[in-house]
């Protein structure tokens, strides 16, 4: 799949933002006053910035409101509803904390759960794709949620928790990558079932329908140099989990914590790039790639 920068930025930033909102809503003690203001500002910038970035890949962003209509069947529509609901509820909760020094507990819990629900809905947009075996896998929703939770813990300064969950995320990610490789290998679709000619012998794409590229080959038949996949996975693990965890074991300092957060962000961006670039869409069989 083509790793579009707008979608990579959207899933990464909004994942972090909603993860942060989940901690602000669910976990006590909540920050108050100006501290709360800055925390919520960062969380909203990430979540809303991510959502705005996602509209850049739309052909007709001016019709985006229509995306709220099909929540019965479409995960993208559900994501839109959950995101708006989470941002609205958390907004009211934030007003209580910032201006009235009051924690509206029920509202915080509801907003926190809606924030996690938004991340889950985002992940289901990918997970539901039967056409992309690597996404159509338990690892997709679990990892989207896990990255949001770990990022939220880091950004809200929960050092103890972050130390504990970073190694867990590392193991989970490695296991998911291995199992996704296996899952993709085991997928029954190949050029034989794609053409229906597989029972007659070995099928080879002889001639493409056209000499150049088309929308399908650009969007879905992206060919990553798979030789770099292992290196990039190492980079994602090192930046995303290993180095931030090591930094957190050093004596705490705000500057160091900021470095840990930025490194984690860079690691998640690499992981998300791989999530798209490495995923094989079954339509590539028609093009013999």
């Amino acid at each position, binding site marked *: 799949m083509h790793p579009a920068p707008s979608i990579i930025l959207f899933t990464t930033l909004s994942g972090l933002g909603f993860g942060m909102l989940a901690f602000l809503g669910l976990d006590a003690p909540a920050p108050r006053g100006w501290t709360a203001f800055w925390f919520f500002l960062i969380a909203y910038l990430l979540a809303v910035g991510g959502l705005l970035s996602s509209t850049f890949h739309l052909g*007709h962003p001016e*019709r985006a409101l229509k995306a709220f209509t099909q929540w019965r069947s479409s995960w993208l529509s559900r994501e839109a509803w959950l995101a708006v609901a989470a941002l609205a509820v958390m907004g009211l909760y934030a007003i209580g904390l910032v201006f009235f020094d009051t924690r509206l507990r029920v509202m915080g819990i509801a907003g926190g759960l809606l924030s996690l629900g938004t991340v889950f809905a985002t992940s289901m947009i990918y997970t539901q794709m039967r*056409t992309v075996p690597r996404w159509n896998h338990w690892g997709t929703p679990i990892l989207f949620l896990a990255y949001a939770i770990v990022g939220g813990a880091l950004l809200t300064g929960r050092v103890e928790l972050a130390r504990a969950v970073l190694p867990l995320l590392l193991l989970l990610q490695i296991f998911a990558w291995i199992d996704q490789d296996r899952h993709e290998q085991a997928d029954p679709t190949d050029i034989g079932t794609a053409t*229906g000619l597989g029972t007659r*012998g070995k099928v080879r794409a002889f001639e493409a329908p056209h000499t150049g590229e088309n*929308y399908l080959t650009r969007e*879905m038949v992206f060919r990553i140099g798979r030789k770099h996949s292992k290196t990039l996975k190492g980079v994602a693990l090192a930046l995303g989990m290993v180095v931030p965890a090591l930094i957190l074991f050093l004596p705490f300092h705000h500057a160091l914590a900021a470095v840990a957060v930025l490194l984690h962000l860079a690691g998640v961006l690499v992981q998300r790039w791989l999530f798209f670039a490495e995923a094989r869409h079954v*339509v590539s069989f028609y093009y013999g790639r």
Partner: protein
Amino acid sequence: MTTLPQHTKKSLGLVIDLDTCVGCHACVTACKGWNTENYGAPLADKDAYGANPVGSFLNRVHSYEVQPEAGGPAQLFHMPKSCLHCADAPCVTVCPTGASYKRVEDGIVLVNESDCIGCGLCAWACPYGAREMDPEEQVMKKCTLCVDRIYNENLPEEDRQPACVRTCPAGARHFGDLSDPDSDVSKLVAERGGIDLMPEQGTSPVNQYLPPRPRDEAPEFDVLAPYLEPVAEEASGFLGWLDRTLSKVS
């Protein structure tokens, strides 16, 4: 609504004969022509005469080579591919705006272009690559089964079929109701053992492909062969003398 209908009154679709298709791309041209001039946004081309031309098409012809396991020469097949108007169309349910829908009356999968936000999710959901974003209009384009021809009473009756079917010079494309067991297309599918593409994807495609008939299996027999048998094994006359003489020299 982007939920799928439980049942459609008809299942209109195409039957494509892989044995007959000669890969001439006439259906591609006819499709592009009709669908550029009629219903919906025209099918755009960008940089058409430049170094990297790209454009939207609703029908494309691939060619595949099959090397039989048992040996023998490879066989070449041409495979036109367009929307298969699936009964369980995954492209419809992912649509967030309701722009994509499957018609209850005839099972055709269509896009309401004024509702399409161009998110591209339906193209991801389709295993067949049947949907392409128009590079100019930025809305999703797909085969409409020439919905503006098949019911069009302003056209002569023989023209009330999809442009690709009407134009095919080899008769490799057939159009009809595949839910009616007595229709010509259903009989053809039953007779020739029509197949689904990627059945394991669970899309229940309506369009059917007729597999090539067996080849190179009967023993080779030619009615003229007995008359063409060599009369003389050994060369005689001048050529015979030449052959003998040259054999002595070399």
